């Protein structure tokens, strides 16, 4: 088996590990580090359930090789917030009933972290478009959009409020 030694910082902990050159980051995180927050719902980058942050950018970890993260900083859902304080997005997801089965939740939250990093004041439509690569089968996405908008407001220092509900029922095929 063709392997490589990588140095990668995962959730602020430096790791030195030997990985197969063909191992996906997702499987490295899940199998080698027991960071099971990244979920596997497909093989081909189509669901977003495996999303993690690599150097602050959201990536589908099934499409990235573990070996490619040599020298990088990886953040998984386990690295967001801490035991005493949830990240505002985590709290907003919980408060808005945005996690039903919860299988898509980590990917949704981590994609939203990057989204809000780039655009702290997204409109509803920008949230919807920003999360289009993350599939959820349970929620119809409404509660998720509400959660992201609430977290955005809170992170901007505004009082958390209900989602802007002016645009409605405007889905496009």
């Amino acid at each position, binding site marked *: 088996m063709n392997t490589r030694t990588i140095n990668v910082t995962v959730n602020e902990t430096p790791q030195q590990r030997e990985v197969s050159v063909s191992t996906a980051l997702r499987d490295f995180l899940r199998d080698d580090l027991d960071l099971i927050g990244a979920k596997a719902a497909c093989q081909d980058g189509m669901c977003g359930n495996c999303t993690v942050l690599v150097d602050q950018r959201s990536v589908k970890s099934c499409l990235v090789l573990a070996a490619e993260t040599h020298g990088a900083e990886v953040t998984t859902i386990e690295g967001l917030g801490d035991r005493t304080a949830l990240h505002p997005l985590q709290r907003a997801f919980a408060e808005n009933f945005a996690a039903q089965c919860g299988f898509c939740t980590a990917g949704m939250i981590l994609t939203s972290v990057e989204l809000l990093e780039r655009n702290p004041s997204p409109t509803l439509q920008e949230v919807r478009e920003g999360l289009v690569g993350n599939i959820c089968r349970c*929620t*119809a996405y409404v509660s998720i959009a509400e959660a992201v908008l609430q977290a955005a407001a809170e992170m901007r220092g505004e009082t958390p409020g209900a989602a802007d509900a002016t645009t409605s029922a405007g*889905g496009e095929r």
Partner: protein
Amino acid sequence: MSIIENPSTTFGAVRTVGEPTAGMFRTDGYVGTSVPKKDSRELVTGKARFTSDIKLPGLVWGRLLRSQHAHARITSIDTSKAKALPGVLDVVTAADLVATGIKNQYQWNAIPDMHLICDKAHFVGDVIGAVVAETEQLADDALQLIEVEYEVLPHVLDAEEALRDDAPVIHENVPGVDGNVLGRHRVKVGDMDKAMAEADVVIKRRFRTAKQQATPMESHQAQAQFDDDSGRLTVWSSTQYVHGLQAQIAAAVGLPISQVRVIKPFVGGGFGHKIGMHSHEGMAAIFAMRIGRPVRIAMSREEEYFTASRNGTICDVELALKKDGTLLGWKERIIADPGGHSNYGMAFLVLTTSLRPGPYNWQALDMEAVAAYTNKCPNSAFRAFGNPQATYVRESMLSIAAKEIGMDPWELRVKNAIRQEQLPMTTMNGLKLETLAIQDCLREAADVVNYKEIQQNKPKWRGVGVASTLHWSSCRWDSDLDADSGATIVQMMMDGSCKVFTDAADSGQGHTTIFAQIVADELGIPVDRVDVIMADTDKVPFGLGTWGSRSAVIQGTSTKRAAANVRGQLFNVAAHMLEASVDDLLIRDSKISVAGSPDRFVNVADVAIAMHLSKSKLPPGMEAGNIVGSATYDTPTELPSDHPDGIGHISVNYQASTHIAVVDVDPETGDIDIVDYGMSDDVGRLLNPALVKGQLLGGFAHGLGFAWGEDEEFGEDGSPLNFDFTGYQIPTFTDVPYFTNDQMRVVQTYDPAVPDGQKGAGEVGLVCPAPAIAAAVADAIGVAITEMPMTPAKILKAIRERAAAAGAPAA
């Protein structure tokens, strides 16, 4: 986290029809409020462990060998090369299982055609062998090394063709199966000749419904571990019904049920596809016993499409009605396509016919349903099982009829829908209705979209569609399962906190939270002092699990009963301590007090500790011990298959729903844009409004997929064509319209059939989107599409054909 006290902050409006029976339930408790979902924190921190997140030391990987052909006899299967691959631990075929005394046959299946491993291929993807190896990659490699020789047989993919005399027979020598017919069900009530004779109009149409796949984000997964020393087999599975799986596995491997433990970890969506045993679960257990190592078998996304899907149907309908819109007769021949194995194919016939009349008054019903095997992926239960097809066909017919007689389609429904003053009633097909606020749902949904106004001012290519339905809250469905039960044990600890054990299997709906609310109210304790344990056969009592919109109603009621039992025990002791009568006691705010004298009270915790540790404080003769209340609940329902007319009261109560879609169709592309949408539902009493909303919306998105494009497609040779998220597209964030609270209205009823007055809510949202959107598209383009799904290509074709027929350009 804040509790949303007022449900109308969750929905656009919550109107209530009818009053609860006096003393039916308390209204100052947690039930009725949006208590935050109890498992939220585990889910948002990523700590929640789903089946394949559980690491077992020494875990090895199983994989299933699947048939390459739609229909073939296996003439030889050589596993020697696979077995010789280093790291491969075991390889088995159907013959190997039988040779070692494994019962390679599903128990308690209406038709004995289900095997863990088949010795004949009935569809592309049928399981014909299995391997287990040290790694997933090695298991995959081993599959490639198994040499199979097939005698390819003619196959049939269309259920109607499968009924022909010259069709290839898919299952031979299976008791109860005649040719490709795995079963029939007939409903015949009222005088159809009279209905036809009195009709001003009789409309005939043929419909086809799609083979949708539930597509939970977590695919089917199982892990099994066998301990030689204790003789105990443990199975972790992403399942909805642990006791059913436990019994099936025990029967397969020949262990007593008591030696098999099935645990449901967190489940990433089930939607019906995860009921009952599947080959991967049985084979994980068998391998674990054969090789003495823990074994995982996880379905790939592709394999999901070989594992389960919705029944397809071909429906020929005749609808008889009067010019004034009065519905008279519904006559239908339904050919169901269950695919290559029976699974729930028989139950489908009974249930879909039971729901076909919908929430309307009729004078005659005549339905003949037949299920015919085809060489395709087998059917499974799937969210609203049988109703999406039934409602799509019925509501499409009603919209076509309204147009034909020149009546507004909404008015036609209002005219025929069951009215408040008819209740309580027994419908023509035997459903006993105590509450059904369908008239209110119709009005509320119309109000959301300003129905009258929008009908009068429609630009070209805009259409409006209405659909209504009636749906069950759990159901009794086939003679092999003449039960509709759930169970709960409530145990009070000595500090007054509670543990609740139930067979219900939450896969995201939030039952854990609802049951905690019910127990907290019954025992007057804070909701965060109630912990709910679910779906682990070593811990929870026997029940039928979670499916069919049942758990809030079924296990909700067994939970209420078990908690009431505990309350009775507490009152017995408190009455002694307070020197009061049991009948005068109240339980609130962690205290038991005497009604009218709030100063005379004892803390729940003091009663609890006394019952555990202080015999001297208890009534004379009472022993110290545990505080455990145990209850089951089985509904007072009937089996239509036992009735000569094929009818019966299948569900404890019934929900009502109306959806109205306003869509614009792009005549150039066939794309649909939903410009407005209103939904209104009677799902009984709202136990937790925010959770109910999540279910209704989630159902809508599933229904949108059913309407717009989800359909398993097959090549001529029976190979599946769309088995990943690129080929089989499910609605994304921007596909699903963003619903505001205003667009969702709830009509609350207090159904007296169960003590909390609730109905189910997990499925009904899926039922109306397809017919509402289909009717809106038909209204926009002037012609109804009667084959699902309504892809842009089909819409475009319909526009062009209509234009050609009219001799005009399309747009």
